[in-house]
C-alpha cells in the first residue's frame, strides 16, 4: 500500500436547495492515476473546485498532501498542478509571456523542463494565446501545470473539446510525463473509453456521492452480465450483488458487481448460465440507471 495523498471525508455542499455533494468520501494513493466519472451535474467540478480551495464546502474534511485547501490554498497551489475546465488565460499575452507571467508565482519553476515541453508540445512561443487552437491551449495549460514539478495534478475534464488524435496525445502525455514521474493524477471525464486505458482507478460519482471506486481492470472482471435461461435458478441475492436486472420471455439477465466471488458457486451448483463481458460504458450505465429489483415471475433463487 502506498501513502494516501488525498483524503476526502463526508464532504457536503449545496447550492440553495440543491445538495450537490452528499457525504462525499474517498481516498487517493500516491502515484495512482484516478479518473472521476460522472454524468453532467454529478458533482465532478464541485469536487475538484473544493480540492483546489476555490469552493467552501458546507461540512466535511479534505486532507490534500497534508493541507486543508480551505485553510491553506497557497500551499495547495504550490504543490498541485491544476487544469480547470475551460482554462481561461489572457488572450492578449503570447505563449512565452504567459509562461513568464505564471513562472513568477513558483519557487520550483523548472525552465529547462519548460524548454523541453515547448518542443515536445510543438507550441509556437510568439503566438498570442487567443490565436491558439483548442489543442494548443490545453497543452499550454498542461505545460503550466507541470513546470513547477507538482506532487499531484488535478485536471477537470481535460479532453473536453479535443479531437480523437489530440485525446490520444494527451493520454500519452499523462503516461510519459506524469505516471513515469510517479506523479499522482486525479482527473474527471465522461469519455469512458478514453479513461479505460489510462486510469489505475475509476470512481463513479453520482448525485454527489461515490457509487463505486475500484481498479479499472478489477471492475471489468467483477461487473458482468449473467444470463439465466428460463427454468434455471440464479443464486440468491444474499450472494449476488445485483446492480441491474432485466427479464425477457425466456431469459433473466442480471448484472452483478461481485462476479469473481460468485463464479465458483455457480459452477459448484451446476447452475446453467452464460456470462457476458461488459464495456466500461455498460458498467457505468448499470450503476447509474440500473434497477436492481428482481422482476416478477423469476425462478426461485438458490439460497445457501
Amino acid at each position, binding site marked *: 500500500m502506498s501513502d494516501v495523498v488525498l483524503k476526502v471525508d463526508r464532504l457536503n455542499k449545496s447550492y440553495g436547495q440543491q445538495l450537490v455533494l452528499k457525504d462525499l468520501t474517498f481516498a487517493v494513493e500516491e502515484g495512482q492515476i484516478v479518473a472521476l466519472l460522472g454524468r453532467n451535474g454529478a458533482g465532478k467540478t464541485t469536487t475538484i473546485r473544493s480540492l483546489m480551495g476555490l469552493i467552501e464546502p458546507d461540512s466535511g474534511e479534505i486532507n490534500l498532501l497534508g493541507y486543508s485547501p480551505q485553510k491553506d490554498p497557497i500551499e495547495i497551489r504550490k504543490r498541485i498542478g491544476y487544469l480547470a475546465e475551460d482554462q481561461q488565460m489572457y488572450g492578449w499575452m503570447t505563449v512565452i509571456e504567459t509562461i513568464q507571467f505564471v513562472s513568477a508565482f513558483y519557487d520550483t519553476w523548472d525552465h529547462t523542463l519548460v524548454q523541453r515541453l515547448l518542443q515536445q508540445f510543438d507550441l509556437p512561443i510568439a503566438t498570442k494565446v487567443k490565436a491558439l487552437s483548442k489543442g494548443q491551449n490545453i497543452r499550454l495549460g498542461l505545460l503550466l501545470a507541470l513546470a513547477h514539478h507538482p506532487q499531484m495534478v488535478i485536471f477537470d475534464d481535460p479532453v473536453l473539446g479535443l479531437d480523437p488524435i489530440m485525446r490520444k496525445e494527451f493520454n500519452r502525455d499523462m503516461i*510519459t510525463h506524469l505516471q513515469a514521474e510517479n506523479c499522482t493524477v486525479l482527473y474527471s471525464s465522461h469519455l469512458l*473509453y478514453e479513461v479505460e486505458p489510462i486510469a489505475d482507478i475509476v470512481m463513479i460519482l453520482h448525485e454527489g456521492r461515490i457509487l463505486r471506486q475500484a481498479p479499472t*481492470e478489477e471492475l471489468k472482471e467483477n461487473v458482468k452480465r449473467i444470463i439465466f435461461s428460463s427454468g434455471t435458478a440464479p443464486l440468491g441475492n444474499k450472494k449476488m450483488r445485483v446492480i441491474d436486472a432485466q427479464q425477457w420471455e425466456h431469459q433473466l439477465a442480471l448484472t452483478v458487481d461481485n462476479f469473481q466471488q460468485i463464479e465458483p458457486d455457480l459452477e459448484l451448483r451446476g447452475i446453467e448460465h452464460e456470462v457476458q*463481458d461488459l464495456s466500461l460504458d*455498460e458498467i457505468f450505465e448499470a450503476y447509474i440507471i440500473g434497477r436492481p429489483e428482481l422482476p416478477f415471475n423469476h425462478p426461485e433463487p438458490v439460497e445457501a
Partner: protein
Amino acid sequence: MFLRIEKGSAVPISRQISSQITALCLSEQLQPGDKLPSVRELARELAVNQNTILRVYEKLNAEGILDKRHGAGTYVADSPPLRQLKEQREHFYEEFQQLVRHGLSLGLSRKELQQMLEAALKSEADSVTAAT
C-alpha cells in the same frame, strides 16, 4: 510489434494486449529471443497505463511465453510453451470439424467446401503479400 487496442471494448485492455502478443509468438511473427519494447516504451506507444503493460508482461512471463530477464528487458521465451500451442491446435481442429459438419448440414458438397477452403487460403495469401 504491431498491436491494436480496441477502445470501448468489453474485453479488458490487458487481455487484448496479452492475447495479441501470444498470437504473435505462436504464429512466429515474434521469434524466440526477440526483445520486446520496455514497459515504458510500449505504454507510450499504445498510450496505455504502464501498470497494465507490466501486468501483461508478468502474466506472459508466468505462462512461459515471455522471459523477463532481470535488468535486461523482456524477451520471447526460448522454449515457447508447446503444450499450449498443441492444445490450441487441437481446439482449432475441433472447431474446424464442427464447421465442416455445419457446412454439410447446410447442403454444401465436399467439393464446394474444398473450394471454399482454397479460396480462403488464397485471399489470406493475397492479403499477406499486400501487407508486406
